[in-house]
């Protein structure tokens, strides 16, 4: 039996910093110098430093990479001298026409929709935070958690390509090489994962607080 007691005050309002690694609360000795967690040595801050700027930079970079990732071939297969380019979408179409529509759907969701959804969700979170929105705080926090959780699944296509390339090496009969699209696609995955890491969900709640919060 245990219950959480509501104190209705945030750590930042009391001038306390919460360690993101070990959860210890501590009061910084000086606001000016860099502070480290006395228990685990992690760098401490009221809010993640430059969270909004860094997250914007990462999602803009990811959006730029998204287009070549979708348009350029991810696989180049050579069968008895004739070669064929495959983009992510044509790979989905191939899975669909060859009769495995559940797999086509999984790849479509993981490779096309999840990265797009992550970019849209993070952009919306950033815009609402910058406008000082105090609406839908619960839904926005939940959305952030979903973004954090499902982001890794967009790596799916990178693994599909890597293992297809690794296995189908029977030249001159049949061989598969990676296309230039793979690099851009991998970049989208990594950049959106970093973007989710740099966004600070506590900013969602700060707009509604009575006292201004010290920003890093």
């Amino acid at each position: 039996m245990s219950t959480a007691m509501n104190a209705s005050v945030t750590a930042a309002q009391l001038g306390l910093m919460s360690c993101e690694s070990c959860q210890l609360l501590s009061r910084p000795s000086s606001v000016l110098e860099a502070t480290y967690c006395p228990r685990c040595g992690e760098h401490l801050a009221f809010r993640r430093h430059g969270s909004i700027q860094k997250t914007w930079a990462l999602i803009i970079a990811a959006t730029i990479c998204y287009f070549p990732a979708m348009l350029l071939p991810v696989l180049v297969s050579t069968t008895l001298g004739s070669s064929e380019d495959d983009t992510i979408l044509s790979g989905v179409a191939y899975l669909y026409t060859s009769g495995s529509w559940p797999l086509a759907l999984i790849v479509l969701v993981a490779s096309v929709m999840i990265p797009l959804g992550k970019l849209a969700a993070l952009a919306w979170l950033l815009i609402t935070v910058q406008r000082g929105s105090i609406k839908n705080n619960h839904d926005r926090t939940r959305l952030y958690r979903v973004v954090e959780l499902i982001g890794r699944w967009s790596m799916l296509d990178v693994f599909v390509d890597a293992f297809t390339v690794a296995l189908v090496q029977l030249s001159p009969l049949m061989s598969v090489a990676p296309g230039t699209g793979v690099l851009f696609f991998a970049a989208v995955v990594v950049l959106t994962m970093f973007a989710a890491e740099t966004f600070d969900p506590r900013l969602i709640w700060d707009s509604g607080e009575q006292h201004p919060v010290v920003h890093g």
Partner: protein
Amino acid sequence: MNERFLASTVACPDCDLLQHLSPLEPGDKLRCVRCDSLLAKRPIGPEGFCLALTVAATISYIIANTSPLMDLSVVGRSASTTIAGGALEMWRENEQLTAALVAICAIIAPGAYLLYMLVLQVAAHRSPVPRWVGGMLRSVHHFEMWSMLEVMLLGILVALIKIAQLASVEPGIGLWGVGALVVLFPAIIVTFDEREIWQRMEWYDGEIPELAVAEALAAKAHG
């Protein structure tokens, strides 16, 4: 302990609301009253259960990385690949960055995660827990985030089905190892009591936690 620090109060990681933590029973999960984020948990399962799972996962990891994942044969010719083969072939085809990413998510991060978890759980038997364990615990979160074995398994299955249209493919022993890891990794995460280790850890600035002192005294009295 220094009164600058509040032992039983935590700030919600997602909304910063301060909340008091009452002692947790095994199986308890404490969520933020405002945003429902997980504040603290105490896993069920006997002591050492998580370590046993980690050992099992380490064995599966070795099998998964040393045995072929799948074999392919077409008109008398055959080929097979391992996890490392997936990254290696990408490297040879001049996709070094992608190859590195595959290696990190499929081999390096899961391997480092298991190694760190083994060492830190054995070291946590000491009281107070040595302070270098804190550094390992911090790294473990990053390794956990970049271990993508479940995504890799699905990726391999999709690749197998795609290739099956062109040639005959057969899953190898390594694939069973990956399957075991995909089950064992979440089991380790669920049964690992990180809070308990943090509470007994010697602080970075040299302070010794009260709990560890009490335990050491009790052990002395018994001995």
